[in-house]
């Protein structure tokens, strides 16, 4: 994603494409005719439509942005926010899961262990990255990085963009459940700062396994959910066509989750989504991480651990007679 690419439009953006095309055509004509009033009107209309579309994005539209193939992926953020980047590899027991990346970067002169799920940009890379769906070995690779960070007192920053943990034969045979459960438990016990950033799709347990953090941040158009909208619709509405309804009911947007008290901050994106401006997205993410790191630096190791445990201890809604 280094060269400037043309942005692939999403379906709900089509009115804008049409308008934009109309404007271009008219502008060409008006250069000859000298009449620019209509162009001006169209441009105003464009801005109005744009505002309507982007200010009122529905949850299912957010999902589409979150899954946009040109959206910045964890490795894009990692490489943009630090000059230093030493990727580390492997679970030490038989696999280097490409769906999980991790290594060392520097933020504010401090060494940081960074871990992310990673999708591929093309078929070949997706073979390696398994479309961002980690295997148990990937979670164990991440666990190894957690322990490394704990040993050397490195803060941990995770980037999450995954449809979920891989549901496969080998993944079950190698105990996907245990791999995820161990990460939940061990993240809860760390004495270093942990910050999780949901950058795209936060897919259920597969996302949570990297997100038991002191601070959980979400990009404005990212989503985070217990089940995919399609999966939920198929089960509860008995048809995948109701994904939009399910997306709304599940409360999966950054705004929803912020209001539910599950996340700590919404990181803004440019209008239309982070894929329109990678640089701005990376800058916003870096600034947010820096702020949280500075705040967490004030806590002692024991306080960091307690803070994280108490944060998740409070999660839930119930009544008690």
């Amino acid at each position, binding site marked *: 994603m280094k060269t400037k690419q043309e942005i692939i439009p999403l379906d709900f953006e089509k009115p804008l494409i049409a308008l934009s095309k109309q404007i271009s055509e008219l502008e060409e004509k008006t250069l000859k005719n000298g009449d620019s009033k209509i162009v001006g009107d169209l441009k105003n209309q464009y801005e109005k439509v744009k505002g309507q579309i982007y200010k009122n994005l529905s949850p299912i539209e957010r999902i589409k942005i979150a899954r946009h193939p040109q959206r910045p992926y964890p490795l894009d953020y990692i490489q943009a926010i630090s000059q230093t980047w030493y990727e580390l590899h492997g679970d030490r027991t038989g696999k280097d899961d490409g769906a999980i990346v991790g290594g060392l970067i520097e933020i504010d002169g401090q060494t940081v262990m960074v871990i992310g799920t990673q999708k591929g940009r093309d078929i070949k890379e997706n073979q390696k990255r398994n479309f961002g769906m980690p295997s148990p070995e990937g979670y164990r690779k991440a666990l190894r990085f957690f322990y490394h960070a704990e040993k050397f007192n490195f803060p941990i920053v995770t980037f999450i963009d995954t449809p979920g943990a891989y549901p496969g*034969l080998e*993944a079950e045979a190698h*105990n996907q*459940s245990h791999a995820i459960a161990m990460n939940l438990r061990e993240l*809860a016990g760390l004495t270093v700062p942990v910050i999780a950033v949901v950058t795209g799709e936060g897919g259920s347990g597969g996302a949570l396994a990297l997100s038991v953090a002191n601070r959980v941040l979400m990009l404005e158009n990212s989503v985070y959910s217990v*089940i995919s909208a399609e999966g939920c619709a198929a089960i*509860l509405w008995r048809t995948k066509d109701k994904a939009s309804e399910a997306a709304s009911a599940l409360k999966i947007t950054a705004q929803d989750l912020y209001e539910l008290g599950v996340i700590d901050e919404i990181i803004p994106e440019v209008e239309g989504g982070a894929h329109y401006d990678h640089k701005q997205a990376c800058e916003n993410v870096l600034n947010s991480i820096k702020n949280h790191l500075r705040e967490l630096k004030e806590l002692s190791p024991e306080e960091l651990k307690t803070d994280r445990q108490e944060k998740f201890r409070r999660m*839930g809604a119930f009544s008690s007679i």
Partner: protein
Amino acid sequence: MGLKDFFKNRQLKKAAKLAANGNGHDLKVEPPVCDDQLCILWTKCQGCNELLYTSELKKNYSVCKHCEYHHRLTAQERIDLLADYGSFLEIDENILPGDPLNFKDLKPYTVRLKDAQKTSNSKEAIITGIGTINNQPLAIGAMEFQYIGGSMGSVVGEKIVRLTERAIEKRMPLVLVSSSGGARMHEGILSLMQMAKTASTLKKLHEEKLLYISLLTEPTFGGVTASFAMLGDILIAEPQARIGFAGRRVIEETIKQKLPKDFQTAEYLLENGQIDLVIPRQNLKNIISELIRLHFKSTKLKDEVMPFSQIPLFARI
């Protein structure tokens, strides 16, 4: 319509009804065949289809004497199976579900909750409490699959956490019996957070060096397996119980191939190094009790905690 057809028909109707309740996974719902006067006397075995005297079946721990199929137990039956008679004292029974998302699919969540309470005769998908097992104290929780597929929402998470905290406070062993389709999606992200919440509290228990035995029963899937259920010091499953992360259908759709028949059974998990023991139901109590005895002897020696016999168990609940 013969008796068998009659049962089958009932079963299908019931299955359809339960499926509408929805649990997060693609488990075949196996309704209890007996739920009214007509079939109180007889129960059809879900393993071999034999008709069994219900009273005999119950006496045999709901295990079929022909094929040893372990029929699902209610949470209360599970407690009765493991805790000494009369020793169990339920805690936190008045933690009740809310509807934080105002969730509504084909039916509002609040209605589903009421239905579930009625169907399962249980206030939520888990019962927790304190009791003894062969005269040794324990903190025990058992899930109720009849309650929305044993799904884990905020109440299940909170009750497990409170039970765990109590185990820490009283330095008791913890036994959790899982039976669940996974997270309760009607509570959205909050149900997902119960995974982190329970695992996080179990980290404390772990650091306190207290024993946690996890008993996995038919079926245990999704966010329950991938959190507290897999974090036991010792993992025990009942024979033939299906246990996994993703459901069979999801996996088959993903990998586009048929899975082996024994995939995700207790025996498969044992073979694949995922659990310690597969124990027939009739031996469970004694083996769990023995494991507790073996572990608590030594913990005492090291940490010099008060011997269990001296803890005024029910006095301070």
